[in-house]
């Protein structure tokens, strides 16, 4: 029976990975297409307005801009698959290297934000869900609602004001590699991660609360009561695992929003991550860098959703036998 289930899981995982590959191809087409049909001549951008038409034409020729778009796409895609995303028009450095330099900082920031959000949100949501319609529930709801309503950069400003300016306990900006200096790394990531994770935390708290309330009404909870299981075990052993499933889905989807949050938060905290890189690339019309960062962000988003889907299948035994699409 066990091996049958494992085989089923492998099939399910294979299907999800196949879907991921197809989706990534789609993303690459869209990214490349949008960046390349945007108005603005790359050659003009590089050489400036006063360049002579001959020089512009020569540069286009050497950059291969005169070739049909689909040839350029395949060329680019081939490069991406071998780890070559071209060179940044602005910095002259290979795009891949720029991204590899910046990605760990952003991943650390996003990971920290998710960890903070989940560890706070689940217990809070459980307390609120269990103590429905009491002051505890009410307080949690108000805090959560405020958290969702205000944008993350606002929390960034508040946190800088309180912890960096007023108490001077945490640095207001910068980044230290946690692999080199763990304490310094954590100190630097604390404020941006908190401001980034606050909205997610609020969202997850509300989700956990409503999901738990729903599960506590389910038939299996009544059965558990009828067999004499304590209320504590009913919540933690029975209801919470089921209540966590929809929360997990939300986490997966929210990671996408987290990355748009990162673009702004990294500006606010002068944090040298991928978001800042993408933002600069956008300002500079650095097309190769834009393509590279967007594709990277999309890949990270899809990978995290893949992980969530697989985790979901582990937590919910019904998923794999669902068959079909």
């Amino acid at each position, binding site marked *: *029976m*066990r091996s049958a289930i494992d085989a089923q899981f492998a*099939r399910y995982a*294979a*299907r999800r990975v*196949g879907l991921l590959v197809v989706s990534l191809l789609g993303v690459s087409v869209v990214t490349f297409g949008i960046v390349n049909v945007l108005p603005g001549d790359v050659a003009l951008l590089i050489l400036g307005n006063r360049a002579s038409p001959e020089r512009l034409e020569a540069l286009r020729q050497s950059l291969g801009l005169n070739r049909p778009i689909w040839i350029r796409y395949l060329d680019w895609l081939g490069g991406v698959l071998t780890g070559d995303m071209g060179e940044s028009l602005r910095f002259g450095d290979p795009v891949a290297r720029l991204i590899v330099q910046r990605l760990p900082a952003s991943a650390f920031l996003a990971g920290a934000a998710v960890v903070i959000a989940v560890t706070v949100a689940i217990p809070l949501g459980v307390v609120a869900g269990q103590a429905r319609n009491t002051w505890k529930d009410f307080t949690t709801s108000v805090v959560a609602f405020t958290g969702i309503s205000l944008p993350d950069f606002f929390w960034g400003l508040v946190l800088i004001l309180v912890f960096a300016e007023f108490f001077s306990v945490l640095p207001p900006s910068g980044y230290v590699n946690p692999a080199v200096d763990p304490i310094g790394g954590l100190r630097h990531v604390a404020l941006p991660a908190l401001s980034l994770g606050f909205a997610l935390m609020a969202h997850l708290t509300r989700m956990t609360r409503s999901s738990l309330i729903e599960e506590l*009404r*389910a*038939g*299996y909870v*009544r*059965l*558990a*009561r*009828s*067999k*004499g*299981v*304590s*209320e504590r075990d009913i919540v933690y*052993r*029975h209801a919470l*695992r*089921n209540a966590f*499933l929809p929360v997990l889905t939300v986490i997966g989807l929210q990671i996408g929003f987290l990355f748009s949050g990162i673009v702004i938060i990294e500006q606010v905290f002068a944090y040298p991550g991928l978001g800042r890189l993408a933002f600069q690339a956008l300002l500079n019309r650095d097309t190769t860098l834009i393509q590279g960062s967007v594709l990277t962000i999309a890949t990270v988003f899809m990978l995290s959703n893949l992980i969530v889907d697989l985790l979901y299948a582990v*937590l*919910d*035994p*019904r998923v794999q*036998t669902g*068959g*079909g*699409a």
Partner: protein
Amino acid sequence: MSNEPAYTRRRSDESTASAGTPPDDRLLTVSDLTTVFHTEEGIVNAVDGVDFHLDRGEILGLVGESGAGKSATARSVLRLIDDPGEIVGGRVDFEGTDVRSLSDEGLREFRASNTGMVFQDPTTTLNPTMTVGRQVAEAVQTARGLSRSAAKREAVDLLDRVGIPDAAARANDYPHEFSGGQKQRVIVAIAIASEPDLLVADEPTTALDVTIQAQILELLDDLREDLGMSILFITHDLGVVREICDRVAVMYAGSVVESGPAESLFSDPRHPYTKGLLASINSVDDGTGPADRDRLNVIEGQMPDLTGTTDACKYADRCPGATEECREAHPDLEPVPTDPGRSVACYRHEHVGEMAYEYDHESRSLSWQTDRADGRGDAGDEPVVETEGLVKHFDTSGPIERFLGDPEPVRAVDGIDIEIDAGSTVGLVGESGCGKSTAARALLRLIEPTDGSVTYRETDVTAAGSDELRSLRRDLQIVFQDPQSSLNPRRTVRQIVRRPMDLHGIGSQGDRADRVAELIDAVGLDTSHLERYPHELSGGQQQRVGIARALAVNPEVIVLDEPVSGLDVSVQAQILNLLADLQEELDLVYLLISHDLSVVEHVCDRVAVMYLGQIVEHGPTEAVFDPPYHPYTESLLSAIPGLEQNEERIVLEGNVPDPSNVPSGCRFHPRCPRKIGEVCEREDPTDHAVDGETIGCHLMREEYADEVDWGSVD
């Protein structure tokens, strides 16, 4: 919170309530139990001063229609009432312990070691993310404090005991890997884990097929004997009660109206409500064939709303024998003077014999429908609807599976022939999963058939283009099983009934308005219902709206997909009468899909019995049912609870097999109680004409005819 009962009632004498049995046999005494639900509409008196008792080893049936307060009563006994419900009065005495006064921990221990409960819907009652072994082991642990490994071993024993094959391996499976009947067995295993004194079974077989129901009832009865436990058995099905219960308490609108030993209560009901219920069922059971197919005896109206207070007998409005006296206060449940084992809550219980339920059929005018109805009666000898080799296969595989190889499709409908004559009703019966609903949908082309043809009055339905199909929809309509989900919740009744006429452009605006009024009258509703939304109607009223909607385009053929299976007995009878009236008036043709053989037997001219996508037996109703020749038909009939007492029951093992992997030869052979031998596994049986019907079974072949023990078939 007021602890006062909601109506004026006299206290019943405590001493008389326990008359009849020696007190040491008494396990549970419930007195004046009152449970309310706080809702936005006000306080609902779901359990309104209920008295009953249960002796050791006894099965007490708590019967009544939905909304009578049976489940709320059962849950109140275990204090399993959820918010916004609240037990506000009365006493639940379990061997001298007052359950209502137990502390939280005391209550937990009471539930863990003294009681067990089985619930109605097995699919939502087990935790989907926990293996069944752990769920059973948990019950063992709470009851007996065993170690985890010992509890796990014990759980496997329990699963084995309730009849889960290969229990040790299956204990590691999750609930979704079990069939409905097996899930209910797992829940029974959990309920008996503590070897409880009291088992509360809340509609334990309602969600199951009749064959599976028979298995579960047998299991419960065996366990009762082995463990010496008492069962509080909640059901709306009087057949089940008659089958399994020693004593019965009949509930109506939150109160027990009559209680007593099952046998005498059924043979000699003392409360007019009990009498009416029995009458509506018996008349379904009695009638066979069109000759004696009279209208059913029905209790008109519906159960009163339980909000607020009552100052009359709750049944007075529907009672054929109510007098002035009945309108003063609700009567107490009191022992019957001539029969101390029985109690009844009726001022006029001595006159129950004279009270009669009659059904007056008043012809309602659907004048505009007759122009199309003319000439329907005589279609010559040709059937009005005919299917030939109708097939519907579902391909459930995804692109990857298809790439890996050609998978077996789900053979939901696998070549069926049905003929329906003008003005007649054909029944299609079988267990759930046999493909009967799919067949009906394919017949109407609500889903595209894979193969075969459907003909309606010389029009090929399967070949019709979209325009032709549109006009065919006027003639071919359907009424769905669940009226609640088939009526648009955001439209009023008026809009729902009118919409088909708008879509088909029938009549002028004014005509349509008139016709809506006529239709709503024809289905027994009145104009006050027109502006309501579906959720404001009862289940029976919703089904009436569904019928009115189907009639709106003036069809000739109506497919009735389990039209009464979601409804209470008394409402069922009302709807069946309505359908019979409409058929008579408009010469309608019905295809009735049902799992309820007694309804089919009462309503249908011809019956087709379906198993795993094929028709195994068909013919005139009397010929098919009396006597049943095909072993499957025989088993289905035999599984109906409570019809005949003391008859040897055939309990079919297992479930309907997976239709994507059908057995070789005769599809029924793995479950067949009369399997001859290898021939059944090898050869697909051909159809044999016997006694005016057609049967697909090897037993009908001459060389095997001797194998049939016709004596047992009678």
